[in-house]
Structures are given as structure tokens and as C-alpha cells.
């Protein structure tokens, strides 16, 4: 495989969404982002505008940097020692890497769902209540209960768990656990929801439920989803970004990326010729 990849100028690649009514406003603007693990460069000069209230999918082969990039958007990589970031990530025009940024407040605004569901070893109720409690968002007991119920309903899991809210979350099935994690993230009412391969460990039925959920949630949230399942990207996303070897190769409306990509490399990947 050739490593000599011709990069198109970014202005040719980035186009506003052609779905929905009119161009969506930009929620996250990334400018010239470099990312290093120690001396190893994982991301190189990424620039992209992620539109509000749409679903943006990141695709690409394993190790291409798509998950790393997702984790720069809520500064989750900060907790890994030896990482360095250069460039800007603007959310609503504010650079989240500017010194003095309140990372805790940032993560409240930018929720995250992980590849492997990671419910806390507590009751279902306490899992959802945790974010509300640590952020001091619950005014009283009744308010807390109402918010927990709302969140579980929003994540389409309420009917399955309403009679056992105080049982352990670890007793739920994999798909239920992942929806619980989504409910947990929704409870603190973030503006952006980052999802790192949220369905990769689930069976097709559970996957379908997550995808339907994503479709409903984009009315309220800006969603960024990493997936290595191209059918999934095609099904759920409005915009798709293709990453390869730490670079953003192509970014544009999902139908264009999958049917008429500008780059040969993108075409090879989405048609399954490599990756």
C-alpha cells in the first residue's frame, strides 16, 4: 500500500451538510490540531467544522486516530500521561485548550459514551443520578427522581428498568448497559454527545436500538460518533469524516462520502478494498 497520499486542500473537502433545511451552524470548529502520545504523533493537522444538531461519523481503519480525535473534543486524553495537543478546538467559538479552561465544566457540556459500556457498580438509579449529584444539579429528591426518569426515557430504556431502579446496573444486558450509559450522559443535559463505537460490542438488535436512539437524539444534541462499521455510519450520520494514518482525508455529507467520494483512498476504504 502506498503511503504517498495526495491530500486535497481542505476547502475542497469541507462542505456544509446538504441534508435538512439550510446549512447547519458550526458547533465544534477544529483548527490545525496535532496530537502526540509521547513522541508518537497520532493526529496531524486536523481541521474540521462539526455542525450543530446533526450526526457526524468518524470512520477509518483501526489505529487511524479517530477515537483519539474524539477524545480531544472533551479533553479525555488529559488523563493519559505524556500526551500533547497543539492547535485549537473551538466549541461555540471558545478554545477548550486555552489555559485556564475549566475541564470539569467542559465535560459537563460534552458528554461521552464509551466503546465498552461502563456502568458504575451501583444501582440503575444511582448510575443516572451520579452526574446530577456531582455537578450539584439536583434541587431536591423529587427533582432528582424526575430527572433520572426523564433521562432513562430519553435513552429508551425506562420501560425495561422502571420496576428495578434500585437493582444493580451490572445485572443488565450489554445493550441495556450501553443505553443506561447514554441515559447517564443525557442526565446532565450536555450540548454535545461523543460516542466511541457505542454499538461495537452489541448484537444486531441492540445495535438497531442504539441507532434509532441516535436518530431521535440529534434533535436535541450535536452527536459525534466513531464507528468502524461503515453501514452504521451510512445509516445514522449526516456528515462523515474519513481518517487515515492520523490524517483527515475527507469530510463531507455522508451520501457523498459513500457514493461519490473526492479521494481515491476514501473510495477504496468505503468500498472495502482495504481496512
Amino acid at each position, binding site marked *: 500500500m502506498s503511503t504517498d497520499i495526495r491530500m486535497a486542500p481542505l476547502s475542497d473537502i469541507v462542505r456544509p451538510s446538504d441534508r435538512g433545511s439550510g446549512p447547519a451552524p458550526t458547533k465544534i470548529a477544529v483548527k490545525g490540531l496535532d496530537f502526540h502520545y509521547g513522541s508518537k504523533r497520532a493526529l496531524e493537522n486536523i481541521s474540521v467544522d462539526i455542525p450543530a444538531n446533526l450526526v457526524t461519523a468518524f470512520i477509518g481503519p483501526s489505529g487511524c486516530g479517530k477515537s483519539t480525535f474524539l477524545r480531544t473534543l472533551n479533553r479525555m486524553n488529559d488523563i493519559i500521561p505524556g500526551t500533547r495537543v497543539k492547535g485549537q478546538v473551538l466549541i461555540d467559538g471558545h478554545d477548550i485548550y486555552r489555559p485556564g479552561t475549566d475541564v*470539569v*465544566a467542559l465535560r*459537563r457540556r460534552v458528554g461521552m459514551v*464509551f466503546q465498552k459500556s*461502563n456502568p*458504575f*457498580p451501583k444501582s440503575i438509579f444511582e448510575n443516572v443520578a*451520579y452526574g446530577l449529584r*456531582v455537578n450539584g444539579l439536583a434541587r431536591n429528591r423529587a427533582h432528582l427522581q424526575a430527572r433520572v426518569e426523564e433521562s432513562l426515557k430519553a435513552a429508551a430504556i425506562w420501560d425495561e428498568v422502571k420496576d428495578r431502579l434500585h437493582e444493580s446496573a451490572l445485572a443488565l444486558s450489554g445493550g441495556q448497559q450501553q443505553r443506561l450509559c447514554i441515559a447517564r*450522559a443525557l442526565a446532565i443535559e450536555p450540548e454535545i454527545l461523543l460516542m466511541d463505537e457505542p454499538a461495537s460490542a452489541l448484537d444486531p438488535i441492540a445495535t438497531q436500538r442504539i441507532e434509532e436512539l441516535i436518530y431521535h437524539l440529534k434533535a436535541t444534541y450535536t452527536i459525534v460518533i466513531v464507528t468502524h462499521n461503515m453501514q452504521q455510519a451510512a445509516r445514522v450520520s449526516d456528515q462523515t469524516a474519513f481518517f487515515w494514518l492520523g490524517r483527515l482525508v475527507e469530510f463531507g455529507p455522508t451520501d457523498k462520502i459513500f457514493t461519490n467520494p473526492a479521494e481515491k483512498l476514501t473510495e477504496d476504504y468505503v468500498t472495502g478494498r482495504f481496512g
Partner: protein
Amino acid sequence: MTVTRAAPTQPLRQVGDRALQSLGLLALLLALATLFALLADVFVDGWDRLSWGFLTGYPSRRAENAGILPALVGSVYVIGLTALIAVPLGIAAAVHLEEYARESRVSRIIEINIANLAGVPSIIYGLLGLGLFVRTMGMGRSVLAGAATLGLLVLPVVILSTREALRAVPKSLREGSYALGATKWQTTWHQVLPSAFPGILTGLILALSRAIGETAPLITIGALTYVPFVPDGVWSPFTVLPIQIFNWVSRPQAAFARNAAAGIIVLLLLLLAMNALAVFLRDRYQKRAA
């Protein structure tokens, strides 16, 4: 061809496998047999001597009147105080090292030294306690000085085992908490420490079990060998079970040897009770968490 050539080596490998298995079993049996022989010897010698009077009696020049109450209460007292000193300090130090301290030369030097401290002979701690607590800080030969000395002795073990337990907490749990806008402290307090608790508890019990059997550092700091009273406060002079047992063992009369055996049984039971408490707490906690 390959198959036929490989075939003769197969039995040989299996013989080796079985030999190692038997060797392991033999080692285990040897250890258990030694332990059992010791226990049997102690029980044969001391069982008759165990009575309510022995447990509630005070030391005496006459072996048949001698009891173990001051040493038993002293041991419980000292271990309780030791736990109060070493547990909060040790857990806090471990949390700092594991969750907060950045990778640096200083933190590496501290880590190596803690590991070394865990291997320092206990009598060295006794000398330190004598110099620091008994003399410089003026605590005298008190329960407090003994507990502080034992506290220092077990502190490295508490730190090491707590760090091990913290390290075993999956990264995904921390990430899940951070992703919800929790601070480092909230994550540590609400998620990491509760998850690590069973492991921490196991380490604590090992550390305190070591402390309860210690004799040398307490003799060094001047714990008495003949105490006809129960300690009435942290400033009181005291003795502990191992010292009382040591005292009885060193007497020439056979009757005192029986007292020593009975004292050993009491010490063993105390140790077992501590372990049982730890297992109970751990199970209860795990059930609540799961």
C-alpha cells in the same frame, strides 16, 4: 512424518507436567503438615489451661493462677490505635501516589523507598520508636508510643497494598466518572475507593495481622513483661500477648510452658477473629456494590 517424530516427545512432556504437579502438591503438603504439627503441639499443651479464669485473670508468680487479661486487652488496645494511625495515613498516601502524583524522579524515589521500608526488620522500627516517640516526643512507655511504632511499621505495607488495590480499578470506571463532569476528588471518593475497598481491606488485615504478632519493637520501646493491670488510657504502660507469651516461655517451670501454649491459642483466635471480620466486611461490601 512429522507426526510420528513428534509422538515420542509427547509422553515425556506429560511426565514432566505430572512431575511438576506432584512436586507442587508435595510442597503444599509439607507446609501444611508443619503448620498442623505446630498447631497440634500448641493445642495439646495449652487446651486444658484455657478457661474463663485464664482469660480474665492477671499475671501471677503461680502458673496455675496466672491469667492473660492485661496482655489481651493491651493487644486489642494497641492494634486498635495502630489501625487508627496507620489506616488513614496509609490510604491517603496511596491515593496521593496513585491518583495525584505525577510521574517524576521524586515520586519514583519515594516509591522505591516505601517498598524498601516494608522490608526493614521490625527491631529497627523499635529503635526509631524509642528515640522518637518515647524520648523525643515524651510519650513514655505508653500504649500510644507502642501503637505509633507499630503504625510506622505497617504503614509501608498499607500503602503498597492500597496502591495495588487502586491500580486494579479499571480505567473505564474513572473515565466514566470524568466524562460526567466529576472532579478528580469526586471520582476518587465515589468510584475508585469504593471499588478498591475489598482489596484495601485485605491489605489492611495482612498489615494488622503482622502488627499483632510483633514483639521485638515493643520490647525495644519498653513494653513491660509483667503488668498486673489493664491499660486505662493511651498513656498507660502496657503489655501485649506476644510479650506475655515470650515471658512465660522463658520460665523454666513446665506449668508456665502450658500457659504460653494457652496464650498462643488466644493470640491465634484473636487473629482468626480479625480475619473473619475482614472477610465479613468485604463480602457485605461486595454484595452492596454488585
